[in-house]
């Protein structure tokens, strides 16, 4: 097999119906392709002529006509034609003509039928009669949920530009200028990777791409620092950059950019870099994306300017909710935007008060750390300071910075935490050694009362600064908790405090709000106890994941619970979250302050039925939790 035909293979892989095929199948298709160039104005297919190939537009543009000569469709790069002829009697049904100079790939009929037989998605695509109509409807709508399905490789338009580690910054800049790109990858020439000539087997250890340099790096690390043109590119590159796999979805790429505030992502196929995507590629694809908002956060120069983005934040949330993005997507995007606000405020604060006297990490807690943030949310944060911190010398600085950020967040709609869990509180602005003591105490001497408040600290993630400080705490918690049955039991009891609103015969037991309406608290009696329950199992497994769905993945890997039970929890969590999101979106649209209370009479019968199912799942899972982490663990009762 000629896997050297990488240009053909990679191009096919970016367009439907080929984008849904496995990598191995794509490897087998490329060598069977034949190619022909058609000058603008020449006929490609004539009515009734025999046809033995599926046609694929590699470049140029092609018009398809009806038998009566009317225009049927206009195709461009990545579109296919000729499938109707192949599916009927190998006679051309719809003639085709090149309207621009076009390069056409031909895939033999035998291969076409084999792909239809073996891949349902391929067959569905080519057999869809109204394909062109459907495609344009989807294209113009730009549904957010498509981001979850479309693979990153679809956005890749060319191979990445690379230089060796011995290149100078001048040579790297020349390569970028010549190729007209805004970033260059540094690869080790002594590794067999990233030779485009072949695909490495997965298990073979190969040296990886060693770094990346972007336009911005030339400004900040070369020119601003006054470095000479002969400086080694290795001295200014970002080593071991964050990457995405070509199979990842555009949404995952977007999250990587959001979380890390980066604008360039190398795309790998296994270990081979096949391209580069940048922020503009995604924004071009989806102009209203949450990334667009996140990006504009970093251009704001004051709290007032940040505050002006709040309406955009609302509309992003509404748009995602209305376009039926999943709860996971919305939660991650909102958390990403919240991180963006926090990071920008810290940058502005450091500009105003000067650089930090000792390293620190600004830590997100609760829903932001779990990537499960919604539109109504408190700020829950803390600071972990380096152990060289001396309160007398340094605390004034950090208090000022924390106050600046906390006030800024409040101005942007992230209201102050009623429980005082904010970096402005001295207790939650401490060096690492004190934080370790807090966590050790919580785990060694658990009591229902301490845990009630401490739970929020068991979902933690670094937002800004030296992330290692927070990673140390995450690992301490995961390691120690999994070996502390008493702590797990206390945490489990805590997780049972709030129960789902289910009565006898699976009817709702409802609460009454101030206006005597029958309501259900979707957060307090739904998503929150579910999150608590998942956290207990995850800590028991020693998992460091924070997101509830990722925690479920980690739990599944340990076989602590049967796969089916995990699937039920996943479904219940997603459903409760999405109902909560839709409810908040509706409240926002009707000009009310969004809350978590729904009136069951006001939702559809189907939703009501599904809600009962979801609460039942939660109820069963709580029974299992009680049994799994007993108050007097057998091992401790001597």
């Amino acid at each position, binding site marked *: 097999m000629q896997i*050297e*035909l990488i240009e053909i293979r990679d191009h096919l892989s970016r367009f439907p119906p080929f984008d849904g095929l496995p990598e191995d199948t794509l490897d087998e298709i*490329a*060598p069977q392709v034949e190619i022909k*160039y058609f000058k603008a104005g020449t006929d490609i297919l004539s009515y009734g002529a025999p046809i033995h190939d599926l046609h694929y537009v590699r470049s140029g543009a092609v018009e398809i006509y009806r038998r009566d000569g009317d225009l049927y469709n206009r195709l461009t790069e990545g579109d296919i034609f000729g499938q109707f002829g192949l599916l009927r009697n190998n006679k051309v049904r719809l003639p085709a003509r090149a309207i621009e100079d076009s390069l056409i790939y031909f895939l033999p009929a035998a291969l076409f039928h084999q792909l239809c037989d073996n891949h349902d998605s391929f067959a569905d695509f080519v057999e869809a009669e109204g394909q062109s109509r459907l495609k344009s409807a989807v294209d113009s709508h730009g549904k957010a949920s498509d981001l979850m399905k479309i693979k990153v490789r679809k956005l890749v338009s060319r191979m990445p530009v690379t230089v060796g580690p011995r290149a100078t910054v001048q040579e790297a800049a020349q390569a970028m200028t010549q190729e007209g790109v805004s970033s260059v990858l540094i690869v080790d020439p002594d590794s067999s990777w990233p*030779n485009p*000539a072949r695909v490495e087997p997965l298990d073979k250890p190969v040296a990886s791409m060693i770094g990346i340099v972007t336009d911005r790096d030339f400004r900040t690390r070369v020119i601003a620092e006054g470095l000479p043109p002969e400086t080694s590119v290795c001295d200014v590159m970002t080593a071991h950059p964050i990457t995405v796999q070509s199979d990842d979805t555009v949404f995952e790429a977007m999250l990587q950019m959001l979380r890390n505030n980066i604008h360039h992502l190398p795309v790998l196929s296994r270990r081979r870099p096949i391209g580069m995507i940048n922020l503009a590629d995604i924004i071009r694809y989806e102009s209203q994306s949450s990334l667009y908002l996140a990006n504009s956060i970093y251009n704001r120069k004051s709290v007032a300017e940040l505050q002006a983005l709040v309406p955009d934040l609302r509309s992003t949330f509404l748009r995602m909710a209305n376009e039926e993005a999943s709860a996971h997507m919305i939660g991650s995007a909102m958390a990403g935007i919240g991180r963006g606000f926090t990071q920008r405020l810290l940058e502005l604060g450091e500009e105003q008060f000067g650089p930090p006297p000792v390293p620190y990490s600004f830590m997100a807690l609760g829903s932001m750390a779990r990537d499960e943030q919604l539109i109504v949310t408190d700020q829950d944060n803390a600071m972990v300071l380096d152990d060289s911190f001396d309160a007398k010398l340094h605390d004034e600085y950090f208090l000022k910075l924390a106050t600046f950020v906390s006030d800024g967040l409040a101005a942007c709609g992230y209201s102050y935490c009623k429980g005082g869990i904010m970096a402005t509180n001295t207790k939650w602005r401490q060096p690492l050694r004190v934080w370790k003591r807090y966590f050790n105490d919580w785990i060694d001497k658990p009591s229902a009362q301490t845990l009630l408040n401490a739970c929020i600290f068991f979902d933690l993630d670094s937002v800004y600064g030296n992330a290692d400080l927070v990673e140390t705490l995450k690992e301490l918690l995961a390691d120690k908790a999994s070996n502390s049955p008493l702590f797990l039991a206390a945490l489990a009891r805590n997780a049972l405090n709030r129960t789902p609103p289910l009565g006898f015969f699976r009817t709702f037991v409802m609460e009454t709000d101030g206006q005597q309406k029958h309501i259900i608290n979707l957060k307090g009696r739904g998503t929150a106890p579910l999150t608590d329950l998942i956290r207990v199992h995850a800590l028991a497994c020693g998992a460091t994941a924070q997101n509830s769905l990722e925690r479920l993945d980690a739990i599944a890997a340990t076989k602590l619970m049967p796969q089916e039970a995990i699937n039920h929890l996943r479904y219940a969590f997603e459903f409760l979250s999405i109902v909560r999101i839709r409810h908040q979106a509706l409240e926002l649209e009707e000009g009310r302050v969004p809350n978590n209370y729904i009136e069951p009479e006001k939702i559809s019968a189907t939703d009501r039925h599904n809600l009962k199912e979801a609460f039942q799942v939660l109820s069963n899972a709580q029974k299992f939790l009680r049994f799994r982490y007993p108050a007097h663990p057998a091992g401790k009762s001597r």
Partner: protein
Amino acid sequence: MSLFMPREREPQTVAPNWQAHLAALAETAKDSHLRGFYAAGVPAADTPIRDVPMIALDVETTGLQVGTHSIVSLGLMPFDLNRIHCGQSKYWVVKPMSELSSESVAFHHITHSDIDNAPRLTHIFEELLDAMAGKIVVVHYRNIEREFLNHAVHVHLNEGLSFPVIDTMQLEAHLHGSQLKQSLWSKLLRRQPLSIRLADSRLRYNLPHYQAHHALTDAMATAELLQAQIATHFSPDTPLGDLWL
């Protein structure tokens, strides 16, 4: 009369009679593979290009000096005016006689570890000649492919390798002859001279951008370019003799 009429005719040697030339070599060549290659012959000079089986060839080398530098990879892509046949393509990385320099590594991404287990060029000669036999070789800039191969054969067999080629770069140079020679006026106006490099030539025919300097990709790119040149500037009835060199 040929459609292919250079604007400024160079003092031209009469195109060799390649059929007769190869027939003679089939008698005199000492090596049996070479004799077989020559015996397969080439189509007559008056064969219309639409009927000519062709094969695009690209070699990547450690540098530009024949004798000092040597071949590291070869790509072959058989085609005709109607189809480019990817399924019959061939690609080899070979162990060069000279050292890999870091510049050449950066250029075509073939590294020391790639060539450690690669065969010597001699070991693939038979397969290479078999693939080329009976077809007209198409290259972009014949001096590299023809001279490096000729030299390599000389070193291994102590006799030369001779075959006709169609050179897409030469075609491009003739088609745009007047724009290549810069007049004083153009220089004063700082007009950019027209580039006839492979990637730039392809742009004129709206052919897509490829990653350059991979022997098989470049061979494919060359085959597409010839199809585009013929479709744009020539008739498919153009006799082979007007195109080969």
